[in-house]
């Protein structure tokens, strides 16, 4: 642990990625995260690492794909419309079983939308915006410190499972400045090219072919089963969540990212009025913490999900509750950020029911 720095989220993400061993960044400018590629463009050459501004997000994700196939820790960052462009690449990366990290600083949509914060890419991130049966690990920090910490984990998880890891943030988490202490630098001199990488056969007995393709359906089914087995292991082992004041809670709020930090204030306000409410905050959105939510269903009177979207994580909460208790919702669309008081007012509408 080093010194405490006051940093903007978008830059903390970059610095954490660099300390966490990112060796190559490929990206394209898009608001509200331009500080991130700009930060990489200054720091990567200082360290002799790769920075390239690609001609589009389509190109960027395919450059990441190529770098990932060499076993290099590669990262791209973008925002919702750019992430839409990358979906094809995500699907290819998934079925090739190569590691990489993607950061999505979500903004209001659909379409060109606006540049205000939103959470409307939850479905896209967790259910797969690209084609086919695939998943990426999706993690959602809610403070600048957590953004920094999780970037280290993102690369570790990516390498461990040879999978894409999506770090889902929004413009608010990107623009806010908070104190952050970075974990120790990962020693990149210890990095070795993996046996499976395509860098030229060299001394290897066999050549490597990394493809997401099998023209024979039986072969493609096998490739899919490999993925399914991987996802089962991830669901078993990598669930992360935070429970805040849940032990005596009569009601549970579910929220992620920016809205979760607002919900913590809502909980303080509620408790000052004597309402015992707590927060279940998924940190991994995939794998989703369905067990912990399901377990609290016997304890609470209802769940109250709140997001900056039409109700996306809401569906996973409902599935986890499985009809045992009501699940209510409050959301804002188009880049509006709800206040703590607004969430409390909406929550209270369901009391006494």
């Amino acid at each position, binding site marked *: 642990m080093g010194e405490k720095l006051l940093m903007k989220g978008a830059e903390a993400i970059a610095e954490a990625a660099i300390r966490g061993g990112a060796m190559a960044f490929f990206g394209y400018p898009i608001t509200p995260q331009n500080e991130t590629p700009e930060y990489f463009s200054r720091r990567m050459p200082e360290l002799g690492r*790769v920075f390239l501004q690609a*001609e589009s997000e389509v190109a960027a994700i*395919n450059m990441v*794909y*190529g770098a990932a196939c060499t076993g290099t820790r590669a990262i791209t960052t973008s925002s919702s419309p750019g992430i839409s462009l990358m979906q094809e690449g995500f699907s290819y990366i998934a079925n090739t079983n190569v590691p990489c990290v993607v950061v999505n600083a979500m903004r209001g949509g659909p379409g060109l939308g606006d540049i205000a914060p939103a959470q409307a890419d939850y479905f896209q991130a967790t259910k797969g915006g690209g084609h086919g049966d695939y998943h990426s690990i999706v993690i959602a920090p809610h403070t600048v410190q957590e953004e920094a910490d999780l970037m280290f984990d993102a690369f570790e998880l990516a390498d461990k499972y040879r999978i894409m890891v999506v770090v889902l943030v929004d413009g608010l988490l990107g623009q806010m400045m908070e104190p952050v202490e970075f974990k120790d630098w990962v020693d990149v001199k210890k990095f070795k090219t993996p046996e499976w990488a*395509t860098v030229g056969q060299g001394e290897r007995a066999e*050549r490597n072919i990394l493809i997401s393709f099998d023209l024979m359906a039986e072969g493609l089914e096998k490739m899919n089963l490999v993925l399914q087995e991987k996802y089962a292991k991830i669901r078993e082992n990598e669930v992360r969540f935070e429970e805040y004041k849940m032990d005596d809670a009569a009601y549970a709020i579910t929220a992620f990212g920016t809205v979760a930090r607002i919900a913590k204030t809502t909980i303080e306000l509620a408790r000052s009025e004597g309402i015992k409410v707590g927060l279940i905050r998924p940190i991994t959105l995939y794998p989703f913490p369905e067990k912990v939510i399901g377990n609290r269903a016997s304890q609470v009177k209802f769940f109250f999900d709140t997001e900056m979207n039409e109700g996306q994580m809401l569906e996973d909460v409902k599935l986890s509750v499985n009809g045992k208790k009501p699940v209510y919702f409050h959301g804002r669309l188009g880049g509006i950020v709800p206040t703590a008081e607004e969430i409390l007012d909406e929550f209270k509408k369901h009391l006494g029911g």
Partner: protein
Amino acid sequence: MKTLYKVPSAITSTDTTYCPGCTHGVAHRIIGELLDEMGLTKQAVIVWPVGCSVFGYYFIGTDALIAAHGRACAMATGVKRTHPESFVLTYQGDGDYGSIGIAEAVHAAARGENITTVFINNGNYGMTGGQMAPTTLIGQVTTTSPYGRKPEANGFPLHIPEMFATMDGPAYIARGALDNPQHITQSKNFIRKAFKAQLNKLGYSLVELVSTCPTNWKMTPVEAVERVKKEVLPVFPIGEFRVVKGVE
């Protein structure tokens, strides 16, 4: 008996899946010969396209990737930037390079990426059944230009080497043809120079190879090579369009 010509060891023993008379096989072989001669086989990473040659990794025995359609130059950039000691080649067709992939192609060239592209121009989209391509000639009938390509509806074919020669990033750009032994040997020499450009870190290198597609041209293989000579080469002439110092 002295051996004058022998199939190179970089070519695998897997029979190709290409149609009879399709010159993809010729292109593969001359690439394989150069990989052998220049000792590059164990260093090479080939990024294969979407198209008939998606299967190329079965036939040339190097480390291999398949890119998403049109993205080979971006994928190759990712490989080369992180592993500059690898010898990186993209092999792409009309759609992959000239249509869906044109932005990635232009920008890899503009950046002077030290990668080499072999671009197969056979005037149609072969794998999907013979649709119009950016290189389809005016008047040429394809499955999506059944009345013949008309400029007022479909514009004009792209002259890719000529276009790319206006950029400073490319170190070597040439167009060859695979229709007869002389042109095939000349094409191999062009590709050798392209490989040298990469090895000498001079920038992007591109060799377009005018090729045949007997099946979708609805011709015999012999008729197809005749068509290249009579109809295609007058529109897409053989030549070297950019040769920077140090390539020779």
